């Protein structure tokens, strides 16, 4: 599917990190996997959980919760790995994102997507494409390319909270 057709689709996959709900455009999502054994790569930053075998491809898995400044994912029956296409340096690569639970595929009309709040947001605005209000709940639509870029940004929280998180990551890595 080319870019133009993709942008016409209004489907989003929603998932949960803790109590909060996020969504990613379905064009980015390749696959949803059940939690499986992850081979840890030594000396890697904490959010880099390790690698798994995805039909013969070695797929890096990222702990999305740590990226968002939360505690590391605790594995439950609902824990999933979402396989995503990420664009890095004009090259499409695949990564797996650990999330607490996958919710649903939602149809969200473009008109109903509000711009991300510029002040008072918990998360850095470049990672949020918009906010949608579905059934009185706010769902944050994420820019997946930015969230999982290779850039060594550990936290997606705004500046004030970022400093102590970064420190904790430095200790780990």
């Amino acid at each position, binding site marked *: 599917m080319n870019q133009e057709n993709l942008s016409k689709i209004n489907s989003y996959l929603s998932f949960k990190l803790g109590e909060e709900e996020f969504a990613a455009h379905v064009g980015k999502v390749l696959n949803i996997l059940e939690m499986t054994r992850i081979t840890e*790569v*030594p*000396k890697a930053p904490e959010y880099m959980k390790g690698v798994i*075998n995805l039909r013969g491809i*070695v797929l890096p898995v990222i702990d999305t919760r740590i990226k968002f400044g939360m505690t590391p994912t605790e594995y439950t029956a609902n824990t999933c790995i979402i396989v995503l296409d990420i664009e890095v340096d004009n090259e499409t690569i695949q990564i797996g994102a650990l999330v607490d639970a996958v919710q649903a595929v939602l149809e969200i009309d473009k008109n109903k997507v509000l711009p991300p709040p510029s002040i008072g947001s918990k998360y850095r605005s470049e990672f949020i494409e918009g906010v949608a209000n579905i059934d009185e709940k706010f769902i944050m639509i994420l820019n997946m390319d930015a969230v999982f870029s290779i850039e060594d940004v550990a936290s997606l929280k705004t500046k004030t909270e970022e400093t102590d998180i970064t420190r904790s990551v430095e200790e780990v890595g």
Partner: protein
Amino acid sequence: MDNFKKKFIEEATDLMDGLERSLLELEENPNDQSIIQQVFRAMHTLKGNSGMFGFDKIDSFTHEMETIYDLIRNDKQQVTREILDLTLAAVDHLKVLLDEESFNEPSVQENHIRLLNKVRAIINGDKKDEKLHIEKPTQPIQSEENDLGNTFYVLFDPVSELFNNGTNPLFLLDELYSLGQVKVFAHLNKIPSLDKINPELCYTYWEAIVYTQDNVNSISDVFIFVEDEATIDIQKISGGNLLADDLFITELKKLEGVQNDIGITKIQKLAQQIQSSRVKDKIVAPGVKERVQSKETAISSIRVSADKLDMLMNLVSELVTTQARLTLFAENNVESGLMPIAENVQKLSRQLRDIAFSIVLIPIENMLTRFQRLVRDLSSELGKEVVFITEGADTELDKTIIESLADPLMHILRNSIDHGIEDAEERLKKGKPKQGKINLKAFYSGANVMIQISDDGAGIDPEIISQKAISKGIITADRKLTHREVLDLVFLPGFSTAKQVTDVSGRGVGMDVVKRKIADIRGEVEIESKFGFGTTITIKLPLTLSIIDGLLVKVDDTHYIIPLSVVDKIYAIEHEKIAKTFNNIVVLDGKQIPFFYIRREFEHTESTETYEQVIVVNFEEKSVGLIVDSVVGEYQAVLKPLGKHYKKQDMISGATILGDGTVALVMDTNKIIKLFANHEDFKIGDELNKE
């Protein structure tokens, strides 16, 4: 049509490369007839092909060039440096002409005319000399050849697919007839019965007796376009015209009736009979054999696109992975009786892997011509005399490695010629031979290929390097560096020691790029230099990039692969012994060996097992132990990249998928040991140096 043109350009590029190689060889042995033949044949083929595909400029140009070499091969012209220079320049020009658009550029047109004039000057100049040449005493046989002509036996046995490229063998025979008197025997015995016949195949082969005033070359020229598609045998059977001999003709007619081929031996016997009878008539014709090029290149190689090879490699990789699963399954289900099958599959896939590998391996010879040319041109441009010696040109490497190796090597050679080798005057002053020497040596070393480039030039002055590093703020003035460390400075970005920045090298983008490019293909580069005596650069490369033989080990619940090529020995050791040491040294077989406890280094919990395994690996010609929980066994690891997110974890060179579907990580032991040795807790570097 575009497709054909692409094919032509591919082939032409090959031909030109071969031509270049032959020309450089010819420079060494200017009188070697076989090389002259090679040059001529390459030109002739190039001419024919380019004419066929509408590259008229190349066609007409090669035609003129060919004339020169025709004169040379007929001994009417000597091979001179001037001719070789011109031909090499011409080959360069022809490469430009392959791009059809290029002729629109005035500079190319100018060059074309200039070269063409030079070529014509040589051809015409030669004509004037011809008289001189003829006065030289010629061999009696030759004079006889010219007077009476010769009779040749010709066997033309095309492969059955001859028609596929549009060749009509009858035209070739017609051409033979144009040379003189000819008697052709067509052999139809290979033709199958009508119901089995495939009209697109050629079942016929021919034998011919040819009498001509021309020499043997003119006959082989007839078949020049089909020499790869046919067995061709041309032999002189007698001087003079045997076909004019009644006895010979009657004998031949007797043979004609026989279904099978007449064969050179029978013909020769016949010729001898005739000759002996002819001796009485005082016409002496010694049966000198002139064996011409044969079928050596018949079907010994084929051309396959690189894409297909890549695909083949991928499939082999997948097969190896699947085979590992099969083996595991068979081991776990002994009663299934699968084990012998699994073992067989393992054996076969290993063989298949080795063959598939050897297909993508190509000898480094392929890029050496380019270097020879570079050394030749650059040294004459700089007014230096340099001989370039290559050893181990048949050493084979993965084609992708060779592709990425050409640029770095080019750069190293440029450096050697430009900065390393002194000019003749200075060399004589230093008591060195006038000619500088650059030696490129390639050889296997374990699972690696080493390429060594050494020159006997000025070497690197450590003083100048240190000063430069200090002035650039890379090191501080009070820092004392070892000789090795000083030399390693040249690999830092922005470091160029040439006093003068020439357009050849020395723009500051230098050895750091070389190092990075070689690191990209998992290679390493080292420099050694003796000031005043020369420099040696050693490049260490992996044989292949995609599958390695490894040792599968376990640490905690993670599997790791250690390349077998670095593994020396394996010992079992009590956990107690390791836990108690303070300096991380164990004594094994009476030798002190520094070790690293992988669990601790990779931040796993300490083991509770009583016994662990020490894998002794080679690290820069020393032994270092790596301690793991257990050894699982040998494993063929198909290397998969870890991806960009793990770029910084370079002590893991990749991952591989095990039979049970889990992922094992491939250790880069060199990087691991270097990393750990810098670790604060361990002063292993000192221990290593003491050894």
